[in-house]
């Protein structure tokens, strides 16, 4: 239970960066932290005491103490998607820097208006 709450704390740290930081790269780092926290939360929910990985290595193997494979399957694709969306955000940040010469979002808002 403490592990689950520590995981939520990591999510809140990432959310803090997203909400209060003014540097675009810092905001992207915050998004990545939120993503890691959610992925880790899924893996923690599926964990089983004395469990083994859900992989059948020989026929007739006992499958009773496999850990839950469904959260792992959900997270597996989400990790790669997270990399692609992070790259998308970084590309946007690079374009913004090329146009305004700064990563500061308040500065960008002032320059625009």
């Amino acid at each position: 239970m403490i592990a689950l709450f520590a995981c939520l704390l990591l999510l809140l740290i990432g959310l803090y960066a997203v909400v209060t930081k003014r540097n675009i790269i810092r905001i992207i780092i915050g998004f990545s932290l939120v993503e890691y926290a959610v992925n880790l939360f899924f893996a923690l929910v599926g964990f089983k005491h004395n469990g083994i990985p859900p992989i059948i290595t020989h026929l007739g193997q006992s499958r009773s103490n496999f850990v839950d494979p469904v959260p792992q399957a959900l997270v597996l694709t989400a990790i790669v998607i997270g990399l692609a969306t992070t790259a998308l955000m970084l590309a946007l940040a690079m374009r913004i820097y090329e146009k305004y010469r700064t990563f500061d979002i308040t500065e960008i808002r002032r320059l625009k208006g």
Partner: protein
Amino acid sequence: MRGMSLIVQTVARLLAGMLFLFGTYIVLHGHLTPGGGFAGGVLIAAAFILVSLAFGSVEQTERNSYTLSSVVESLGGVLFVSLALAGYAAGTFFFQGAAAYGTGTPLRLISGGIILPANIAIGIKVGAGLFAVFLALGASRFVMKD
């Protein structure tokens, strides 16, 4: 000198092939051992990125590989959808892999119905897509400068 120092280039030359081979192994054994198309695809992209970072790149070659990798990425996506459509060809539903391909001998390399070809399609797609993203972000051009 283009790219990084001689030590980095030598190590990259030795490692890149093995990295590519390991990525292919992970893609092909995704239905038997940990791994699969997503992990192996990222490893294959990492092999290309290692070479590209260590040796730098020329503008024209980079543009060619950029176009080629985005085309290969789309082909991987098309391959994945057509594998799913093969369920219709077998007379059942979308994504009915076992009916279309058969399950094969359990725990052998050629088994797992749709899973082995779908892993290959996803590996191609993820590897080419991430390498295209890397080229688009232009990290190798930064290394070229010094």
